[in-house]
């Protein structure tokens, strides 16, 4: 018996020795890891302001509610009751919460973020019910706020909780629960907007309750991003666009700074600001047939339509197929063998030179010019003007569009390029696809006579004391070697289009400011034609380029021209410091058709 007891105790001593001497370091490390925890102190995201310092996005202190899973009761029924209480108190999706709890078995003491953006009243109500909510943790958390609601929503973008994949990709600066840009400037300026999280080094007990504070590093807020947008012009452009689907873009001609980019939209970035948008609302936004999250200015592709005639004309002038005097006759209809192609004006325009053809947007003139040029020259000049390639604006998700070629058509359709395709391409239809922003770039090139400034929305970055960290200097993104005589001829055409009473863009005419522009009516097999109007002003020394694109807008010379005119007028009012005109253009119901 004595031997048995002695042997038992001796073996136990060996085990103690093994644990405490041989493996001591391992267990020491495990014990320290157990009890010391780093709590991040979320740094507020930087502000986004417009060119005049108007705050478009900021951060406001608010609270988030989290749940420490291990503090839920062990008893099954009590646990379910507590989970149900959470669902009720915070209006959570029960399946979502159950999923998160199931995931958390590995880390039962790290809190699950349930809801953010809670007001003090909400927090007070939760505190009252704390007895039914075991494991509730309330922490301060900066909330992203967009004071103007959906103003410039597609430019500003929105934020969301950083995903696991993003965490792995971006490494050290982020912790779970951090907000990260998901769209718009919030994405492109992410590295400036994101502040440096501070932290608390805290000794905790087994339930994650704080026992002692070991150290504190204050968070550093993110940098301020100054945009090129003018909040007032943006608001006016959005007001003018109203409920119509489409885009209105105003850009500084000499710098490429975007002054306004209005997208008809029904989404408000504040919905996403608390980090976790409610499931129902997210479904509603994603499944909305009007695709409210799409930035139509840079992500939607349309045929450019008659505005493309500028490209056709400059190609022909440079290749010697056209000159100032050369004329073609428009009889209202154009035949290639048995195929007929009509002019928008079926009565015909008679004999025209290139300037008159631009003014009246004659289709037959450009059909004939296109045939003389062939598709290869058209495609080459389209490339030069930046079609088929993103403009390089500092917003995520920009599309490049498409410029068709012979080889492309043969590869895709196994069909040769027909002369009819060339005819269509010469007036900006056929397989051409472009974003509204590429039309802005086209007009900018004409306005600056061969230079394009890279469009951008971020003007500069400032730190918290207002010192400039980074200045965005205007960049010439492309240069075209085209004769000065060609530019002046094109410019005369664009001027006439707006300023002759017979021009298709006459509705964009402004008495006190010289506007030059071009209309576009894009044939749309799915419904009413799309309408676009692109212009710059003042004509002699261009400072602003405005493009309006309206889906199903019927005719480029009507509402699109009127909206562009109002935007230019508002810009002029702002520039001169007078009160902005606020009357709304109405769709013209009568009057001569203003063609395409």
């Amino acid at each position: 018996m004595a031997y048995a007891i002695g042997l038992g105790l001796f073996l136990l001593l060996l085990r103690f020795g093994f644990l405490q001497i041989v493996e001591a370091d391992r267990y020491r490390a495990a014990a320290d890891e157990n009890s010391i925890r780093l709590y991040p102190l979320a740094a507020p995201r930087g502000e986004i302001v417009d060119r005049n310092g108007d705050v478009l996005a900021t951060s406001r202190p608010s609270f988030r509610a989290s749940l420490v899973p291990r503090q839920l009761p062990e008893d099954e029924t009590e646990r379910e009751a507590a989970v149900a209480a959470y669902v009720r108190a915070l209006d959570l999706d029960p399946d979502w919460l159950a999923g998160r709890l199931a995931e958390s078995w590995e880390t039962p003491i790290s809190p699950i973020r349930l809801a953010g953006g809670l007001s003090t009243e909400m927090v007070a109500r939760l505190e009252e019910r704390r007895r039914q909510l075991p494991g509730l943790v309330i922490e301060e958390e900066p909330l992203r706020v967009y004071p103007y609601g959906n103003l410039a929503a597609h430019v500003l973008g929105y934020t969301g909780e950083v995903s696991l994949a993003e965490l792995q990709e971006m490494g050290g600066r982020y912790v779970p629960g951090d907000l990260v840009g998901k769209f718009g400037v919030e994405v492109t300026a992410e590295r400036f907007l994101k502040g440096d999280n501070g932290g608390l080094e805290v000794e905790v007990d087994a339930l994650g309750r704080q026992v002692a504070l070991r150290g504190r590093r204050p968070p550093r807020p993110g940098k301020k991003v100054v945009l090129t947008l003018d909040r007032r012009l943006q608001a006016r452009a959005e007001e003018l666009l109203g409920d119509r689907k489409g885009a209105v873009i105003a850009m500084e001609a000499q710098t490429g700074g975007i002054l306004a980019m209005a997208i008809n939209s029904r989404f408000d970035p504040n919905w996403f600001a608390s980090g976790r948008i409610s499931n129902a609302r997210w479904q509603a936004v994603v499944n909305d047939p009007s695709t409210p999250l799409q930035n139509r200015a840079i992500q939607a592709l349309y045929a450019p339509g008659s505005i493309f005639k500028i490209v056709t004309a400059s190609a022909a002038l440079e290749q010697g197929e056209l000159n100032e005097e050369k004329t073609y006759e428009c009889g209202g209809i154009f035949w290639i063998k048995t195929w007929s192609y009509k002019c928008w004006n079926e009565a015909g325009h008679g004999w025209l030179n290139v300037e008159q053809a631009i003014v009246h947007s004659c289709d037959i003139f450009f059909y004939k010019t296109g045939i003389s040029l062939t598709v290869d020259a058209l495609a080459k000049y389209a490339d030069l003007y930046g079609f088929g390639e993103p403009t390089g604006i500092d917003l995520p998700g920009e599309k490049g569009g498409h410029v068709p070629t012979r080889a492309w058509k043969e590869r895709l359709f196994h069909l040769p390029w027909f002369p009819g395709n060339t005819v269509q391409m010469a007036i900006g239809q056929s397989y051409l696809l472009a974003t509204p922003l590429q039309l802005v770039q086209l007009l900018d090139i004409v306005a600056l006579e061969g230079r394009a400034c890279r469009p951008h929305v971020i003007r500069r970055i400032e730190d918290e004391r207002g010192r400039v960290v980074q200045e965005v200097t205007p960049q010439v993104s492309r240069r075209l070697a085209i004769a000065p005589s060609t530019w002046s001829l094109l410019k005369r055409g664009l001027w006439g289009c707006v300023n002759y009473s017979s021009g298709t863009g006459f509705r964009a005419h402004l008495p006190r400011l010289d506007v030059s522009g071009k209309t576009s009516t894009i044939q749309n097999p799915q419904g009413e034609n799309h309408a676009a109007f692109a212009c710059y002003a003042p004509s002699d020394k261009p400072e602003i380029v405005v493009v309006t694109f309206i889906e199903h807008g019927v005719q480029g010379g009507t509402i699109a021209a009127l909206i562009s005119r109002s935007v230019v007028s508002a810009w002029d009012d702002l520039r001169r410091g007078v009160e902005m005109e606020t009357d709304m253009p109405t769709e013209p119901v009568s009057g001569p058709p203003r063609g395409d």
Partner: protein
Amino acid sequence: MWYRVRRFAESLNWLLLACLLLLMAAGWGLVLSAAMPPNQEGPWPIPAFAARQAVWAMLGLIALMAGAMVDYHVLLRLGPWLYAIGLILLTLVLGVGHTSFGARRWFALRGIFMQPGEFTKLGMLLVLVRLAAGQARDPDPLRRRLFPRWLPASLLVVAIPVALILGQPNLGTALLLVLLALAVWLVAGLPWSLIAGSIAAASGVAPAVWSFLKDYQRARILNFLNPYRDPLGGGYTVIQAVTAIGSGGLTGRGFLEGPQNRLQFIPKHHTDFIVSVLGEEFGWVGCLSIVFVYLLLYLEGLRIAHRARDYPGMLLAVGIVSLLASQTLINLGMNVGVVPVTGLPLPLLSYGGSSMLMACLLLGILLNVGRQRRR
């Protein structure tokens, strides 16, 4: 009067008494450390658990003296009564007991919990000793060796409380009762081979028993075989205890300085897992000292058994030592993760009134057996 006190004092086994007092003092310090709130710096104010443990220790000393003074022959005669009371309490606790951690083991009396399982041990031990020692010897030597006359009655005496305790359910105490009975029988002449054979037979039917075990019991066995199977559920305590003991290293982190203990990572660290506090705060040196004191205590107990005045006294002393020693081995083993977690306190060290009073009473009886040798 003074003479009688002196004679009583001289008759006591002072080595055993010293070990007991040492363990009690060490246990009180560890309970103090375990019970202190995480944010309290010094030992003041004394936590409630430590204050209560001091009261239990005082009551334990009284029980010890009482056990040492009452002739164990009287106790042996009272044995069946104690046993019967124990059985009644066990039956009652199944009906009205206080449930904690899914088991009904406690009576709640004015906020103080009592475990009748502890008191059953003494009654059963006394009855077993009486049965083995009291009956006339069988004339047939072979039958005497292989199937003594007292065996059927003894088996019944063990089976009833074991069944009741398994019903609570309390695997640890049931196992302890079986071990106690085996030790007594072994010393009373039942051959090794028979006991080994029964154990082999028992392992033969183990798969059948498995199907009768409750889910939590199966989970405990599985968790013992691999505690990392469910690191935050059943295996959590063992992992945390082993981590605490291992992190203590050679000399420990110092009194009141063990983070695993102080930050309450180990559930029940003041009762069943008190050794994790010892290991974390005093290291291997601390564990070595305590194990040495236990060894000394039990060896001295066996010496008393060896020199006992008569056969029942010897059996009684062996029973007491085996009961306390197996409890110690099981508890230490579960703290270092080599024995399944069964919910047995460490005699004299763990917090708990029933356990403390019982251990003291048993050691008191042991002292009484030791005193009678000199008469």
